[in-house]
C-alpha cells in the first residue's frame, strides 16, 4: 500500500513537472528563411537593372505561397484574385497553391494549421471569414516565420499586410447614391440585409451606412442577417417590403451575390403589385459579371465596383515586397486600399474593373 502511495505521488510529481504551457513567445520568430539569396533589407540603393531583376528572381525562386480563400471554385471574387496571383508568382518562379476551404471555417483552420506545422509555405494569403477566427493562426504563422497577407476581410489580429476595399467609405458612397434616388421619390426609409454580426465586412458596412444615413436624413427601418444565404435574403427582402410597404425606398445589401435574390423578391412584389414599380431599389456592393447582369436586368439599381483584380495584384506586390525587405514576419504591419466607383446601368460598361469574370 505504502509503495503504491509513494509511486502515485512520484507519478503525480512527474506529471506536474512535465507540464508546459506552450505559450508562444511574444517576440516574433526568425526572419523568413531566405536560403542563400542576399536580398534582405531591400534592394541596394544603386544597382544594375539586370542585377536587380536577378536578385528579385532569386529571392522569389521556390518560395511557396499559399492562398486560402473562403471559397474558390466558381466564386468570382477569389478566382479573380487567384488568377492574378497565379500569373504573377509563376512568372517569378515561386510555387503558388490555392487551398479551397469551401466555406468551411473548420476546414480553413485545419488547412492553415497543416501549412504551419508542416512548414509547407513561406507566405500565406488569407481571406478571413470572421474577425476572430484566425487570430491564433496568424500569430502562429508569424511566429513560425511565415508572412501573412490578409485580403479584403480584416481580422482582429493583423497580418503583415492587409489589402482590400475601404468598406466604410464605399458604404457611405452607396448610401449617398440611395439617398439621392429616395429623395427624388420623396421617401426616406431604407433597410439593410446584412451578414453575420462578427463578419468584418458586415461590421464596417453597417458603420458606413449608418453614418451616411444620418447625414442624409435617411431612416434605417430594418436590419437583418442573411447569413450570406440567397434563400434567406430573398425571404427577408419580401418580408421587409410587406412590412414597410409604401415607405420603403432602398434595400441595402453589401454583396451582389445576395443582392440578386433580394432584387428578385422585389421584382416579384412589383409584378404582384404589392409595391409600386421602381419604388424600391436594391443597392449592392461589388459587381461581378453576375452583378452587372443584375443591374442591366433592373434587379440591382446601383452598386459599388471596387478593384478586385487590384486586390490580387496588390497582394502579389506585397508578398514580393515582404520577401525583398526581409523583415521578421509580424514585425511591421501595413494596410492598403483599392479604388472604387459607384456604378449603375448608365456607367457600368465604362468602368474598367466592373463586371469582372473571375479569370
Amino acid at each position, binding site marked *: 500500500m505504502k509503495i503504491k502511495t509513494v509511486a502515485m505521488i512520484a507519478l503525480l510529481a512527474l506529471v506536474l513537472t*512535465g*507540464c508546459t*504551457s506552450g505559450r*508562444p513567445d511574444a517576440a516574433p520568430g526568425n526572419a523568413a528563411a531566405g536560403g542563400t539569396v542576399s536580398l534582405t533589407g531591400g534592394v541596394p540603393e544603386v544597382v544594375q537593372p539586370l542585377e536587380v531583376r536577378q536578385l528579385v528572381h532569386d529571392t522569389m525562386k521556390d518560395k511557396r505561397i499559399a492562398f486560402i480563400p473562403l471559397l474558390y471554385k466558381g466564386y468570382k471574387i477569389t478566382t479573380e484574385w487567384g488568377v492574378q496571383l497565379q500569373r504573377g508568382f509563376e512568372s517569378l518562379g515561386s510555387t503558388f497553391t490555392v487551398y479551397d476551404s*469551401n466555406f468551411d*471555417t473548420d476546414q480553413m483552420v485545419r488547412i492553415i494549421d497543416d501549412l504551419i506545422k508542416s512548414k509547407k509555405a513561406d507566405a500565406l494569403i488569407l481571406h478571413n471569414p470572421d*474577425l*476572430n477566427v484566425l*487570430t491564433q493562426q496568424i500569430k502562429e504563422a508569424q511566429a513560425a516565420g511565415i508572412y501573412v497577407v490578409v485580403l479584403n476581410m480584416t481580422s482582429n489580429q493583423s497580418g503583415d499586410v492587409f489589402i482590400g476595399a475601404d468598406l466604410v467609405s464605399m458604404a457611405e458612397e452607396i448610401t449617398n447614391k440611395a439617398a439621392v434616388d429616395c429623395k427624388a421619390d420623396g421617401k426616406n426609409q431604407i433597410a439593410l440585409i446584412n451578414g453575420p*454580426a462578427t463578419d468584418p465586412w458586415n461590421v464596417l458596412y453597417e458603420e458606413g451606412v449608418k453614418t451616411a444615413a444620418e447625414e442624409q436624413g435617411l431612416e434605417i427601418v430594418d436590419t437583418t442577417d442573411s447569413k450570406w444565404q440567397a434563400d434567406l435574403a430573398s425571404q427577408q427582402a419580401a418580408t421587409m417590403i410587406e412590412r414597410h410597404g409604401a415607405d420603403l425606398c432602398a434595400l441595402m445589401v453589401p454583396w451582389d451575390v445576395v443582392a440578386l435574390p433580394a432584387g428578385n423578391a422585389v421584382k416579384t412584389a412589383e409584378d404582384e403589385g404589392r409595391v409600386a414599380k421602381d419604388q424600391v431599389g436594391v443597392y449592392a456592393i461589388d459587381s461581378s459579371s453576375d452583378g452587372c447582369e443584375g443591374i442591366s436586368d433592373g434587379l440591382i439599381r446601383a452598386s459599388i465596383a471596387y478593384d478586385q483584380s487590384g486586390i490580387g495584384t496588390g497582394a502579389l506586390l506585397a508578398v514580393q515586397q515582404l520577401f525583398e525587405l526581409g523583415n521578421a514576419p509580424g514585425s511591421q504591419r501595413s494596410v492598403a486600399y483599392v479604388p472604387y466607383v459607384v456604378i449603375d446601368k448608365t456607367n457600368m460598361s465604362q468602368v474598367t474593373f466592373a463586371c469582372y469574370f473571375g479569370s
Partner: protein
Amino acid sequence: MEAAVPLSLAMILSVAIVVMVPLGINDGGSILEEVATKGLLAIGLTVVLVAGGIDLSIGSILGVTALSTLILDRVYGVPMLLVVVLAPVIGAAFGAINGFLIAKIKTRPFITTLVTLIAFRGVAKWLEETYSSRLVVPSTSDIWYFLGQGTIVGIPTPTALFIIILVIAHLSLTRSRWGWHLTSVGSDRRSARRNGINVERSVFSAYILSGALAGFAGLLASARFGRADSGVGLGFEIIVLTAVVLGGVSLSGGRGSVIRAAVGMFVVTIIQQATIVLRMDNGYFATLLAIVLLFFAVLDLKWGTYRERFAAKLSLDPGMTAVGPLIDVTVLDTLWTVNGRLTDAPPIGLGLIEGAEDCAIDDGGHLYCGDRRGWIWRFEGPDHAEGKVFARTGGLPLGHAWDLNGNLLVAVGGMGVQRILADGTTELVANQVKRSRFSLHDDSAIRFADDLDVAPDGSIYVSEFSSRTSAAEYMLEFVECRPNGRLIRINPDGSTEVVIKNYVSPNGVCTSHDGQSILVASTGLFRVDRLWISGPKKGQLEPVLEDLPGYPDNMNRASDGNYWMSFVAMRTPVSDLLMKYPAMRRRMTKELPVDEWFVPQLNVSCVLKFTDSGQVLKVLWDETLENYPMVTSINEHEGSLYLSGVQNNRLGRLELDPEDRGSIDTRRVPMTQQARTSFSEAEK
C-alpha cells in the same frame, strides 16, 4: 472478439491511407490533437449509444461551451481555473436538457437531439451576436495556453487529458455499477427495469455525461483555436457518429466500447488529414465519410446477427498432435488382450447413482462417490447395500481423495476443490489461482478440476483438465486437444500455485508411493508423466508411460506398491488419423451437432496396473461393455477393486486376485502416519 471484424477493417483502411498518402510526422501531431477533441465527443456518443439513445447535439454543445468559456474568460474575467471547471458543467447543463426530454418526457432520442442541435447552435449564435466584438483581447492566463498548446510529460495536454478520460470511461462503462446499468438499459429496458434499475436515471446520466464531455471538448477546442465564432463544432456530429459506428459500437444499444470508438475516431481523423494534405475539396471528405458510415452501418447490421456464432467458432482451435505407434489390443494373447475380468464385478448402488467418476472408502468401510447431479453418495459398509445422499456439492464431482485430517476432498468440475466434513457439510478449499500475466484469456478460475491427490506435506495437487472449457463441455477439449490444462498445487495454507502450465488435458493425479513425486496422466497425449516434488530432481517432469493404446483417466495407488489406472477411451487408427488433421476436426465441429462428433471410442472398460518405472503389469477389461461400459477410476481397498465410471449407473466391486494384494493402505497419504479419523466414528 465480436468487434474484431469492423475494427480490423477500420485498421486496414487507416493503414492503407497512411501508406498511400504522404502523411508526415507533423500530421501525427495534428491528428492526435484532433482525436483528443473529437474523441471526447466520441466517448460521450458511445456512452449514449450503449444506453440505447443517440446524441446529435454534441457538436452544438461543443460550440456553445467553446464560446461560453471565451466569454467567461475574456468578458467577465472569471478565474481560469473556475472556467476549466465550469466548461463541463455548462456542457452537462445542455446535456441535461436532452436527458430531461428523452428520459423524462420520453421523446425520441434522434429527433430530440436533432432539434437541440439547432437550438444549441442558436444559443451559440446569440452569444456570438452579443459578445463577439468583445472577445478580441488575448488571454492572460497560462492555463489557457497549457490547455491549448502545452504538454504533460511530453504529451500534448489535450491528448494526455483525452487518454486519462478514455481510460476512466472505459473502466466505468465495463466495470462500474453505473456502466452496467447503462448497458442493461440500452440492451433491454424491460429487463433492466425488472432488475430494479432506474431506467430514467441511467438514460439521463448518459446524456449528462455526453454533454459534460462535449463541454470539456469545447474548452479544449477554444484553447486550441481561440475561435470566437459560433461555427465551432459544426458538423462534428456526423464525423463522430461515423467514427463511433466505425469502431463497432452498435446502434441498437447495449454494445460498444469507448476504446474502439476512439480507434474509430483515429481512423476518421486520418482520412480527414489525408484529404487536407492532398488538397482535396472538403466534398471528398464528406463523401468518404458518408460511404464509410453507410458501409459500417450495413456491416453492423449484417455482422451483428452472426458475430456470436462466429466468435464461438473462432474460439475452438483444434491443435495438431503427432501420435506414436498404436498397440493393437485385438491381437490375441498379449498383455493387452481384451478380456472379461471386470464383467462380473457385483454392482453397488445400481439405479441410484448416475455417473460416479471416482469414489473413496473410509475406515468404516463406507463408500463415498460423487454423481453428476452434484451429489455425494454414501453407501454403508461393509456390504454397501444401502446408500443415501451424504452431501451436495453441486457441479460435477470428479476426483476424490482423503486429506491428512481424514476429510474427503472432492475435485468438482466447475467449482474447484471442495472439502466434505464428517457431518456432510462442504467447504471450499480453492477455486482460483492467480491470473497469469499477459494472457488475454482469464485463467484465474479453476474451471475443470478433474482429479486430485495429497502430497506428504499436506499440499493438494489438482489436475485441471482445461482452463478454457468447463466440465460440461469436455467434448470441446477432446476435439481441440491443445495444451490448455494445468496442474495446480493447493498449499496447506490455502494459497494456490500453478505447477505445470500448458499441459494437454491432465486427468489422473496420484502421489507416488515414496511421496517424492506426483504422477499426472495426459488424456490427450496417451501418456503419464512424473513431476518430482522433492529430492534432487525437484520440479522436473519426466515420462513414465508413453504411447498408451487408450486415453488415460484416473490413477490410484495399488496396495502392492504399483499403480492402477483406467482408460476413458481407446485409440483407434481413425481417431489417430483425426488427431493429425485439426482442420478436419474444426470442420466437424462446424457442420455436425455435438452428439455426432467423431471422438475416440468412449465406451471402453479397460484398467491397467503399472509400476513406478512404467512397466505395465496387468490389463483388465469388461469386453461385454454391459455392466461397466466405462471405467474412469479404480480404487483398491482391502482386497477389493472399486470400479467407478462417469457414464455408468453403478459402481462395481471386484475381488482382487491374491497375487495383487499388498500391505499398503492405498488411501493414506504416502510417507505420513496420521491416524485416520473415520466419518463413521465421528458420527458416533
